[in-house]
């Protein structure tokens, strides 16, 4: 798995490529929490277009990011969910708690 961040206006994007599972979800969690807690970004957008597989530990990292973003008064968004990633969020009944967009443009333009 590779993970990197980039800036687009007032949004910080986290690009994740590869599977997110118990082996590497701690790294995803670390990057997301660093951006939110230490860099105090206003809008964090997680790009999941390169993620084919996500397990419950990966979902937990996203949920933690969402909860921290609420305490930091930041926006936390996801886009580019693969069918498998969407299915996992639906099965865990969590799809409704996230702001989910189809494309990067849609996430960036979200009011």
């Amino acid at each position, binding site marked *: 798995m590779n993970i990197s961040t980039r800036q687009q206006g007032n949004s910080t994007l986290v690009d994740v490529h590869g599977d997110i599972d*118990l082996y590497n979800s701690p790294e995803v969690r670390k990057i997301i929490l660093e951006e939110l807690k230490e860099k105090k970004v206003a809008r964090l957008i997680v790009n999941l277009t390169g993620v084919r597989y996500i397990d419950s*530990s990966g979902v*937990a990292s996203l*949920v933690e990011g969402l909860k921290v973003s609420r305490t930091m008064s930041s926006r936390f968004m996801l886009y580019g969910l693969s069918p498998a990633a969407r*299915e996992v969020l*639906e*099965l865990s009944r969590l799809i409704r708690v996230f702001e989910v967009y189809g494309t990067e443009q849609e996430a960036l333009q979200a009011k």
Partner: protein
Amino acid sequence: MDNAVKLNFPSDPRYLGVVRGAIERFAALVGFDEEDCRWITLAVHEALTNVIRHAYHNKHDQPVELRLRERDEGMEVVMVDHGTGVKPEQMCGRELDDVRPGGLGLHMIREIMNETQYMPLEGRNELHLYKKRGTKTSVGE
């Protein structure tokens, strides 16, 4: 468990991807469609991560055995570990209305598989999972 494909590997999360590949291909071989193959793989993967985290307390050098077999128009999976067991009644998952990290794996396993049986035995724990072909996993509200 005759005619089973047996996989033996250490409880190291690095190997999760390798094991997922084997499960997904076995499910396809047994005749599940692409979506069900993904579900079955997720359920077995979640069971395996529970073994690593809770039975072996994140020790990465402990033995795990996985047996995969075709049975009754479906697929049976038996996972064996030698770690800390729990009482079956303690495996209760959690309410999904409570939005917080963690505790999702058991819910996923039960939603996906038709049969889930956990047996803490003398010196080992066995988890038996079964999924019948044609029984779709519901992801609705």
